[in-house]
């Protein structure tokens, strides 16, 4: 019988998650675990082929060699996004070996991973700890998954691996290029995807590591981001991914005038508050508004003769253009979103791969995210205390993973770029359905109906005095929207947990509840 406690954010959370006791969220920076970091078993080089050739015939052989057994943890990574063919192939190979009750630990899941539902039905996979949306999200949201889903940020995934909360038995690393020793890299090959940063922790801390590639090169694979010294086996597949779905050809700036208005207002905000100054830094992802923000800011930087020291991405051609125009010294790239980003990462020494360790990890001696001056993020819901939800629809259904979102909240100024309503549904609410990030870390909410500054940030409120920016309060924006849209009914949620949301330190910040049986939310045909 699961017991529940109220955490520091006032949310009801289980004290046990998938058989392990869990800490309730205690506030920002309050939870500081002690002890030693997790490590794989001691190994001897004499057990591995002296000629460095670790190739095996297929995935089944590799899994057998890595001693995969019932109830183990198998991990994979999302740098191939919706084009990934490796995770499902590995889990299906495990099924052929007759293995049961695996915990699948992806860094994120995509619609291409829908076949895992079948593997859960057959008992091969017990549950998933990683982002779930689409069909997998519905499977979890409707209470069909056996264990609890556990959603972690990119930094939180590294933290959980490093402090032993999750012990990976077998890590499967899909690699666009690799050599027989297991050195691997993402910037070259037919399935080039850019940085492999998400797989780094797994390569270091997993008990066994399998590299899977469709582009085997003779030793050495140059450059290498994954070190073969951590790798047990190398498997060749005809294709590891669908290049068309691995990266988008080009990322697109939003065409919606409302969203462009939000993007432009954020850029003006960053300029007028003086955050935009020589040597500053910012982070922007690949969302339509974030890309629009980069374009507007670029023009303003050019006009003011201001140059950034570094930008963090999600790299796209817009960041690459910024670099080539000399408006930033470096791109620190956590993941690469389009072909221009992939190409530039491979060729430009000023475009550098980063990882959740360098950028986000709670158990590091600091990380990059908190050194960024301003970051622009999205959200599904925001409440009047600036608390935000990125994980569920307003009816509690799983919608998005956390990604680096929670980790980025530690930037000098965190801006949430959100429309004030979507399809009549207000985004600014009294209480977020699911709490992903606490309001004390969210400084600004920018909508098409005005920019709201968190009252905690007196400095920012002072900085915009006298500017022509549309500064308003969240209450004002909420009232405007409710006047237009009406106040929505409250969806009914059940009392049965289906997943938990972890904070960056490994504590549980909120619970996702099974959605009640109600009429389909999907649009009519």
């Amino acid at each position: 019988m699961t017991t529940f406690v109220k955490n520091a954010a006032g949310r009801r959370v289980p004290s046990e998650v998938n058989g392990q006791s869990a800490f309730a969220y205690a506030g920002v920076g309050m939870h500081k675990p002690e002890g030693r970091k997790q490590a794989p078993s001691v190994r001897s080089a004499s057990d591995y082929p002296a000629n460095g050739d670790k190739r095996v015939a297929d995935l089944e052989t590799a899994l057998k060699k890595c001693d995969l057994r019932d109830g183990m943890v198998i991990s994979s990574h999302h740098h191939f996004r919706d084009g990934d063919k490796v995770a499902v192939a590995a889990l299906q190979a495990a099924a052929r070996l007759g293995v049961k009750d695996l915990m699948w630990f992806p860094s994120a899941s995509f619609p291409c991973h829908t076949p895992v539902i079948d593997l859960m039905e057959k008992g091969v996979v017990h549950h998933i700890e990683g982002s779930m949306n689409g069909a997998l999200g519905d499977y979890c949201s409707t209470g069909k998954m056996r264990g609890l889903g556990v959603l972690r940020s990119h930094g939180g995934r590294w933290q959980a691996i490093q402090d032993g909360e999750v012990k990976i038995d077998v890590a499967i690393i899909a690699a666009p290029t690799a050599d027989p020793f297991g050195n691997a890299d993402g910037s070259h090959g037919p399935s080039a995807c850019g940085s492999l940063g998400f797989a780094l922790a797994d390569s270091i801390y997993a008990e066994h590591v399998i590299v899977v590639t469709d582009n085997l090169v003779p030793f050495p694979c140059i450059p290498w981001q994954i070190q073969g010294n951590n790798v047990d086996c190398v498997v060749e597949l005809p294709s590891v991914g669908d290049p068309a779905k691995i990266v988008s050809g080009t990322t697109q700036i939003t065409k919606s005038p409302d969203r462009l208005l939000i993007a432009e207002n954020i850029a003006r905000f960053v300029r007028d508050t003086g955050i935009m100054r020589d040597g500053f830094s910012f982070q922007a992802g690949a969302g339509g508004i974030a890309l629009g923000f980069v374009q507007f800011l670029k023009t303003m930087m050019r006009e003011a003769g201001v140059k950034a020291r570094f930008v963090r991405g999600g790299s796209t051609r817009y960041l690459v253009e910024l670099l080539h125009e000399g408006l930033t010294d470096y791109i620190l790239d956590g993941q690469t979103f389009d072909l221009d980003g992939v190409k530039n990462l491979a060729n430009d020494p000023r475009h550098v791969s980063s990882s959740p360790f360098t950028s986000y990890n709670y158990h590091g001696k600091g990380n990059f995210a908190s050194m960024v001056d301003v970051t622009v993020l999205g959200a599904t819901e925001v409440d009047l205390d600036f608390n935000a939800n990125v994980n569920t629809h307003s009816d509690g259904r799983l919608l998005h993973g956390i990604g680096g979102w929670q980790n980025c909240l530690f930037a000098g100024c965190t801006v949430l770029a959100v429309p004030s309503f979507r399809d009549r549904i207000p985004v600014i609410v009294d209480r977020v359905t699911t709490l992903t990030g606490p309001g004390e870390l969210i400084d600004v909410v920018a909508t098409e109906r005005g920019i709201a500054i968190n009252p905690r940030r007196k400095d920012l409120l002072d900085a915009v005095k006298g500017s022509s920016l549309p500064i308003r309060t969240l209450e004002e924006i909420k009232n405007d929207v409710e006047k237009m849209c009406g106040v929505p009914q409250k969806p009914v949620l059940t009392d049965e947990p289906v997943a938990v949301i972890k904070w960056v330190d490994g504590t549980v910040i909120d619970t996702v509840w099974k959605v009640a049986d109600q009429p389909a939310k999907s649009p009519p045909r």
Partner: protein
Amino acid sequence: MANQGLGEAGRMGDQVRSDLHVRIEAQSSGGVKLDLESKVQLYYGDAIRADIEATLERLGVRHASVTVHDYGALPFVIQARLEAAVRQAGLGVGADARPARTVDLLPPSAKKRLRRSRLYLPGDQPKLAVNAGLYESDAIILDLEDSVHPSAKDAARLLVRNELRSVDFGNAERMVRINQLPLGLEDLRAVVPEQPDLILIPKVEDAKQVHEVAKTIDNLRQGGRPIWLMPILESALGIENAFSIATASELVVALTIGVEDYTADLGVAKTLEGSETLWARSRLLNAARAAGLQAIDSVFGDVGDMEGLESWAKRARALGFEGMGCIHPRQVEVIHRAFAPSATEIDKALKIVGAFKQAEAQGLGVVSLGSKMIDPPVVERANRLVAQARQMGLVPEEGEQ
């Protein structure tokens, strides 16, 4: 328009947002049967049902099967689509189903107000109207003419009428472009009671069309609030009659040109530099100025070409135009920038106005600035420029510092 008790309005499909589709079939008994599917059912299902029931009651519809596919439409849209379907089914004759007004009317617009930018909004697309007031154009145009498919005219008219009652367009002057007469007269019957600030009359070729519109408005108008007119000249004949059109009614505040139709009428291609319309635009401008009206330029059709727009707008200002149409919100700011006098111009004009005031105070007949004598027309131009700059907020109001 009765259609054997059957009516449909609105849009259906995966791409549709902020709109809905209504199908209604009159029945002889059995009350109202409502089949509702909505993208926002969980949040607004009850509200949508209540809205539909109330609207049907206002329309006096007691027995009908109603099928609604909703994609997050706001209440005024739901009411307009439902009413359109009901009327198409031949029901609700004579009933006033207007929703309660939810936005306050701003004070009447001034005859000579700033009209640098007017943003066109297709009258049948509610999604674009809801946030149109955020872009700070001087005016918005709810368009019933070219942007609305002939089969959607009746539905668009009701939607535009409801928008005038329910959408907050900020400080923008609220304009409606009606259809060519006689269909445009039907548009007037729907929108004039909602007191728009201005009616754009398309394809005006002679003063009689303006008379007819002015007379119809006068008959429909309640209260003393003016509804201004802006004729659009879109043919060779219209351009020839520019002055008589400009002087056809006291309510005409501006003339504008539709270059797309005008060039088609001439049988020439429209170019980026616009020499083929230069004469027509100059003729219209001269007629407007002669009648004491504003001359407003056409729209710039390429929304991707902001540089082209800016240079077009600057040339338009140099010719004497006071504004342009916009077909995308991103054009608004570019146009405002292009129509703003430069700092040098303002500075010079302020000096001239100052010198004039000083000369006047000293009882001097001759105004001079430095070593130069200033002629009266130069003073007048400077006065105009300062007044304009003041309207645009580029110069503090008199008495302010």
